[in-house]
């Protein structure tokens, strides 16, 4: 059997694949955070909680109403995005003129509320969600076993990320969005409804998180704490990548996911902390982040 630094190739590739899957989640979540931050200047602490809600919506849809995975992949982001829009209209918008920290605190409070509610109803133990039959099974390659569902997660996430990149960089709407991010007063004076744009941006960013949640449901345990653990890693990803560029978020997210997977093989004890270690090193060498602009 082929060994790479003393590790069988099969095990190594398996972990790289898992790393790519986690990295896809990091990429989608950090991209959503960046899109929201660009328009609202708010770091959405509740992003993880919305991701968890996306997964729970899929689980509830299947178990209470018998709605299939494919339908929930569309419905769950819509539903959670709608909740986010109500949240933005009712609460978040009153804080824009204040220090950015209040937006962070409000969304943190909402995390406790949302997570606490789900804990109260469903407990902390995870619930399993079956892999949809169309994507179950795998391909037996000569050097490894390739589960189809994991490939699907990576493809779907990357498609979403590049879709967002295309929409923001290449379309008329994206141009408006970038303009509003740069100078919202000026864009508003051209007769464009910027507050509506802000609300929809928040809804869309959160819907991305919910989409990632549905993708995660069959491979992670659907449980209330699932959002809290991932969001802190995503924060570190955001600090490492900087929030300036979309492609930067995607590359950083995937890269760190793979790095985490490799660490699991070569130095298992550090697997949980390697992303944070990278963050510290980046802070020393390039305080503005790998893709951020120095100011």
């Amino acid at each position: 059997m082929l060994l790479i630094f003393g590790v069988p190739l099969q095990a190594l590739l398996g972990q790289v694949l898992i790393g790519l899957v986690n990295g896809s989640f990091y990429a989608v979540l950090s991209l959503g955070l960046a899109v929201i931050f660009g328009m609202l200047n708010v770091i959405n602490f509740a992003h993880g909680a919305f991701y968890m809600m996306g997964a729970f919506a899929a689980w509830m849809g299947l178990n209470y109403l018998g709605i299939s995975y494919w339908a929930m992949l569309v419905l769950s982001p819509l539903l959670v995005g709608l909740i986010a829009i109500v949240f933005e209209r009712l609460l978040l918008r009153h804080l824009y003129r204040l220090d950015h920290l209040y937006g962070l605190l409000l969304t943190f409070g909402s995390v406790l509320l949302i997570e606490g509610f789900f804990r109260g109803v469903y407990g902390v133990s995870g619930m399993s969600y079956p892999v949809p039959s169309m994507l179950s099974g795998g391909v037996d390659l000569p050097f490894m076993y390739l589960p189809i569902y994991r490939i699907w997660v990576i493809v779907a996430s990357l498609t979403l990320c590049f879709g967002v990149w295309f929409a923001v960089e290449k379309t008329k709407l994206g141009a408006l969005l970038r303009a509003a991010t740069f100078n919202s007063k000026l864009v508003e004076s051209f007769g464009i409804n910027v507050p509506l744009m802000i609300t929809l941006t928040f809804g869309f960013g959160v819907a991305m998180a919910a989409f990632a949640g549905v993708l995660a449901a069959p491979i992670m345990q659907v449980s209330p704490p699932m959002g809290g653990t991932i969001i802190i890693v995503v924060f570190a990803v955001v600090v490492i990548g900087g929030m300036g560029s979309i492609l930067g978020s995607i590359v950083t997210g995937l890269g760190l996911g793979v790095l985490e997977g490799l660490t699991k093989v070569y130095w298992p004890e550090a697997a949980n902390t390697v992303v944070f270690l990278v963050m510290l090193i980046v802070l020393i060498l390039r305080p503005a982040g790998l893709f951020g602009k120095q100011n």
Partner: protein
Amino acid sequence: MFSLAAIVAISLPFIGAYPIFLMKVFCYALFACGFNLLLGYGGMLSFGHAAFLGGAGYAVGMAVSNWGWSTLSGLVFGVGVASFMGFIFGIFAIRRSGIYLTMITLAIAQMVYFFILQASFTGGEDGMQGIPRGRIFGFDLNNDLNLYYFVSAIAFLGYLACYRIVNSPFGAVMTAIRENEPRAISLGYLVNRHKLILFTLSAGISGLAGALKSLVFASVTLADVSWHMSGLVVLMTLIGGVGTLLGPVLGAVIVVVLESKVGDFSRFMVKLTGWESFQILGQSVSMVIGLIFVICVMAFRRGIVGEVKHFWDQRSRAK
């Protein structure tokens, strides 16, 4: 005013207050005061202060149970460890500001959390149990009342230290940096050095609170280093009033009382309305905490002490 507080503290156990409960309040109050130094006077929101509270607790546990140190040297060691951690956190965190600083502190604290979860000496998921309280100046601290007076005296000294720091030339410079950093730089102040010192002091005081807490409960657990704890101290400071000296103390009292009464409240609501769903409130304290958080941020951002002070200022200005 200070002597009044001292008289109240001395007499509380005699009017039937439960010493362990009071000590918990004092520890959290001191924790919040230490946190408030950084947020209220340095304008830096840390989401990683649980690392200092829990880190000091684990350090005391190590020193006293595993190495057999005396209680006093254990406490000093705990504060030292927390201050050193604060120094390290500070070195990285002050390279960025605002929201990024918050995310960095959160990430480093999470690193500490995973380290403590996996290290062999910390008891992993169970935490450290049965930390001996020991003796101090010949008094046996296993007696709750002795411990109570010791803890209240130390907490009071910690509060005085905060008071002194805020009302010192150093505190004045920190306030200047908070209000207008570029101006402070142009006046020739070494801004980063000041921030780093404040970070260390804030961590040291939070560590003192954690060290005392580990003696009071004779244990340290993973909950002490988790991000929920970091959020809780933000809430205490916010409820009481950011940037006021008394606010965090009041906030800590409110949060601790609330945590212990949420169960009673939910039972009361179930009885009152006959709606079983109120049971969820009692099972999930974090929901109630989250709700108060949201209300505080939306409705009264100055906090209780801050609002009172604001009202007072407005009135005296009107006259």
